[in-house]
């Protein structure tokens, strides 16, 4: 399930607590989620750099062995491609959460509740 959707659904669950405010809960949850996404992105980025570095070394190492080189290039293509796609998704979620935060910051409780409902429906 979409991480952002899950976060917003969890916020919605506490809508009828006899205290607190939905905007406050949403902002806390979204900020935590963004921090987590950012940390995950950094980890993936470091891994990607390592894989690319290792790949470049491998390609140079197997310079005179085309079969090995092809296998190495193939493995790199899959892993780097996969990592890039994951990073793109993380970045996209991070941006969406950021946009929601901007909208929620200066919105009334009714607007926040409506916004969350609509975003959950669309995601």
């Amino acid at each position: 399930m979409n991480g952002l959707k899950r976060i917003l659904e969890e916020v919605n669950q506490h809508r009828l607590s006899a205290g607190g405010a939905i905007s406050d809960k949403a902002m806390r949850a979204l900020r935590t989620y963004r921090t987590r996404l950012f940390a995950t992105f950094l980890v993936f980025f470091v891994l990607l750099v390592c894989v690319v570095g290792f790949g470049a070394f491998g390609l140079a190492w197997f310079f005179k062995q085309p079969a090995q080189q092809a296998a190495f290039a193939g493995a790199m293509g899959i892993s780097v491609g996969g990592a890039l796609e994951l990073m793109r998704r993380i970045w996209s979620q991070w941006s969406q959460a950021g946009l929601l935060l901007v909208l929620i910051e200066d919105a009334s409780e009714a607007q926040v509740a409506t916004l969350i409902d609509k975003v959950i429906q669309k995601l």
Partner: protein
Amino acid sequence: MSLPRPAKADASDIALLLAIPLDEREFFAHVGKSDWLQQYAIEGSDATARQERLRAVWTDEYVPLVAEPFRELIDRALGLGTDVRTQATLGSLREATTHKPIVILFAHWKGPEILYDDLVPPVEREKFVARVRESDTPLARWLASSFRASGFAQASPDQAPAKRSFWSSWRSYRIQSLVEILRASLGVASLENSATDGIEEVFEHEVTRAARRRDAIDLLFRGLLRPGNRLELFDGLHAKEEVEAAVAPLFQGVLDLTTCTSTILADFIAARRQLRFRVVQFPTAQQPIWAAKSLKSTIELTVQAGLPYLDARILARRELEQALAEVGPPKRFIDRLKLWSET
């Protein structure tokens, strides 16, 4: 110091005060004016769509999670002979604490959070800036510095620019709006804690700090900001001082404050009354369905099993937690509660 444990009680010793809408008419009437239900005050020009949305909220959310569990509680409590008062006001609290040794109050607590809705229109930043310039408290200085850093308040000519670390400058660069700055001030540790106080370090729970800071903010921006730390009863929002004053002077029983983060109110009342009675309190938000089920079991255990109220309260909570754990699969608390209440 310990208080003597309250003796056993019968049904006529208990008063149950409920300060939330319990039928459709009350719900619709309160959506526009209640702090708790303001999230359902949907704006827009299409009145029919608004009514439909509100009716859906009533049927799909409010009835199963609030109204129905409380109706069950009321029926059971009345059946056992307990005094039940709906649409509770400060007057109900005064009357109940005058005549009953055990008073249970379920209501919404407007916490210390600062919301956009709390700004009193028309919102003029300049007025907020002027207030902090007029004050010389550590909170006002912190706010003035944050206002300047966020770019919507120029420093007055006689005011030296505040020294800020790289980290605090970066943080304030991210904070843009007035509400965000006010919100951030609730959580800033050690604002009032200077070396000149002779105190090395103060340990304070973040809920307590936020509540205390909110009181200071309300005082600073009186008239510009709707105050926080209020108990919502059917006659409006009340400060903790008003609630304490409404408790009968000779009350010496148990006051069960089943409201969110009632520790703030309970601490205040207990200190003012010098711990003359026991206050059941909660440090976190309360789910109405959980509260209703828990109170129903508590009243049954008190009246039918003859347990002292406080023992019954603890036992009821444990039983409820155990029952929820046994329901199993759904991981979400609300889903488990719903499933359990249906079985």
